[in-house]
C-alpha cells in the first residue's frame, strides 16, 4: 500500500501565529496544564533545546525570555479538522494520527494524478503555506512518516530504492514505541535503527516483550499498521466564550444549550441524532477539561442531550472558573425507533392479534373479520368475497 504522510511541524505554534501574526519572530512557548504541572506543548521553531511535554520550568531555564501562550487545543483541533477535510477532497482515506500528522492512502490515485509531482501538488494545495508541511511517500505508515521527517520544510521526499540504507543511520528515537523501550535500547547501547534491525528476534522479545518484535520490524522498515481513515461523517464543532468566567453549573448549561441549539439546527434536516459528543472547557488559567459523552440511543432533541451533559458536568467538576466552552459532535445516528426491522411486520401482527383476542375475550364471538377472496371471478356477487374471523 502506498501511504503519504503530511507532517505539520510546530502545529500548535503555527495555529497561534495564524491567529495572531504578531508573535512571529518572537520566542514563544505554548504551554498546557496537567494537574498542578505546567508542561510544554509546542514552541517557536527557532528555539532549540526544548521538547514537547517537558516541564515549563525546565524550558524557561533555557529560554527565560520566551513569551508564554496558553494552549487552545479545541482551536488547534478545529484547524486540523479543516486540513483533514481538505485532504479528503483529494483521497477518501485520510487518517488524522495526531495534531499535525496525517496519513493519506494514495493507492489508485494515479488515475487522477498521473505522477507523484501532480499528487504532491494537489496535497500541498490542501494545506496552507503557513504550516510549512513536510510530505513523505512510502510503502507503509512508518516509512512515510520518516520520509516526511527527513524532507525539507515545505518540501517532500519519496522513499524508494534501498530502504535499509536509509534506515541504517537513523536514531532509535524515531521509533513510535514507549519511552521506556527507547531508554532501554539506549541502555543496551543500541542507538541506531541499523543496530536494532541486526538484533535476533528471540532475545529482543525476551527483553522488550511484545514491543520487541515491533521494534525489530520497524527498524527493518516493516510496518503492518493499517490506515484508519477517519469517519466520513461531517465533524460539527461549536464554540462559545462566556461573558464572564464562571463556575456556575447553570451558566455552563446555558452555554451548552446554546451550542446544542446550533448543532440541532445543522443536523435537524438530516433527521439524525447525536450519538457521541466531546465537550471541552478552558479555564481562565488555561487548564482544560474534556469529556466524551456517548449516547446509548441517538439523542434527537436538545432536552435529552442537555440532561445527559448536565449529569456529566455535575459528576466531573471543572478545574476552575470557565471562560470558554467548545463542543465536537463525533458521531451521528438515526433514531432507533425509526429503523426498519426485518421482523417489524411480524411483531406488529402479533400485537394486533393480542388486541383482537382480548376484545373477543371481553365481548365474545368474533369481533374483527378479514375480507377474503373466495370466487372473485364469480358472476354471483355474494360468492366473490367472504368475511372470516381475523386470526383463526
Amino acid at each position, binding site marked *: 500500500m502506498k501511504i503519504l504522510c503530511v507532517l505539520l511541524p510546530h502545529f500548535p505554534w503555527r495555529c497561534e501565529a495564524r491567529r495572531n501574526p504578531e508573535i512571529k519572530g518572537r520566542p514563544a512557548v505554548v504551554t498546557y496544564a496537567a494537574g498542578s504541572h505546567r508542561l510544554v506543548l509546542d514552541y517557536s521553531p527557532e528555539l532549540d533545546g526544548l521538547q514537547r511535554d517537558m516541564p515549563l520550568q525546565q524550558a524557561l531555564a533555557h529560554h527565560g525570555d520566551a513569551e508564554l501562550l496558553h494552549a487552545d487545543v479545541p482551536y488547534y483541533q478545529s484547524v486540523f479538522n479543516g486540513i483533514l477535510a481538505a485532504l479528503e477532497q483529494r483521497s477518501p482515506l485520510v487518517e488524522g494520527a495526531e495534531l499535525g500528522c496525517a496519513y493519506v492512502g494514495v493507492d489508485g490515485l494515479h488515475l487522477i494524478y498521473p505522477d507523484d509531482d501532480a499528487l504532491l501538488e494537489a496535497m500541498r494545495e490542501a494545506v496552507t503555506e503557513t504550516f510549512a508541511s513536510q510530505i513523505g511517500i512510502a510503502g507503509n505508515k512508518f516509512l512515510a512518516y520518516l520520509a516526511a521527517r527527513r524532507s525539507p520544510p515545505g518540501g517532500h521526499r519519496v522513499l524508494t530504492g534501498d530502504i535499509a540504507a536509509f534506515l541504517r543511520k537513523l536514531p532509535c528515537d524515531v521509533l513510535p514505541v514507549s519511552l521506556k523501550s527507547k531508554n532501554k535500547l539506549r541502555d543496551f547501547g543500541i542507538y541506531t535503527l541499523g543496530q536494532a534491525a541486526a538484533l535476533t528476534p528471540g532475545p529482543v522479545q525476551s527483553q522488550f516483550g511484545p514491543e520487541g518484535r515491533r521494534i525489530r520490524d520497524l527498524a527493518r522498515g516493516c510496518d503492518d499498521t493499517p490506515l484508519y481513515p477517519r469517519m466520513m461523517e461531517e465533524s460539527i464543532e461549536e464554540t462559545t466564550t462566556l461573558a464572564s468566567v464562571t463556575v456556575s453549573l447553570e451558566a455552563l448549561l446555558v452555554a451548552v444549550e446554546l451550542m446544542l441549539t446550533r448543532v440541532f439546527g445543522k443536523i435537524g434536516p438530516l433527521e439524525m441524532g447525536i450519538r457521541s459528543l466531546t465537550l471541552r472547557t478552558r479555564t481562565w488559567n488555561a487548564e482544560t477539561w474534556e469529556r466524551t459523552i456517548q449516547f446509548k440511543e441517538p439523542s434527537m432533541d436538545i432536552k435529552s442531550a442537555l440532561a445527559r451533559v448536565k449529569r456529566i458536568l455535575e459528576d466531573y467538576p471543572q478545574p476552575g472558573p470557565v471562560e470558554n466552552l467548545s463542543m465536537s459532535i463525533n458521531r451521528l445516528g438515526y433514531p432507533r425507533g425509526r429503523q426498519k426491522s426485518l421482523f417489524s411486520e411480524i411483531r406488529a401482527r402479533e400485537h394486533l392479534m393480542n388486541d383482537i383476542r382480548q376484545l373477543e375475550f371481553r365481548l365474545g*364471538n*368474533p369481533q374483527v*373479520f378479514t*375480507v377474503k377472496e*373466495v370466487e372473485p371471478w364469480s*358472476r*354471483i*356477487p*355474494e*360468492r*366473490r*368475497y*367472504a*368475511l*372470516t*374471523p381475523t386470526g*383463526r
Partner: protein
Amino acid sequence: MVENTGKTLRTDTYRPVNTPEPVSVEEDAAGLPVALKKKRQLKIAAIDDRWRIDDEWWRQEPVARLYYAVRLASGERLVLYRDLAGGGWYRQDY
C-alpha cells in the same frame, strides 16, 4: 378414535359479503321496476342498464336473476334484481 378437542364448532366463522337485501319494488305492466318502496316510495327515474345471470342450473336451487341498474329521482344509483327462480326483488351492489 379421534378424541374430542374441546373446540366448539361455530357457525358464524364464515360470512358472505354483499348478500342481497330483499326490497319491495313496484313494477309496471311490462314487469320493469318503476318505484322502490322503503319507508316512502322512491321513484325510479331511469333504467341505465339491464343484464341477466343464469348460473348453477345444475343445482336444486339454480340462480336466475335479472339485474337492473337504475337511477332514482334523487339521482342515487342502485342495482336491483328480480329473482326469476324464487321470485321477489332484491337490492345488491354488483
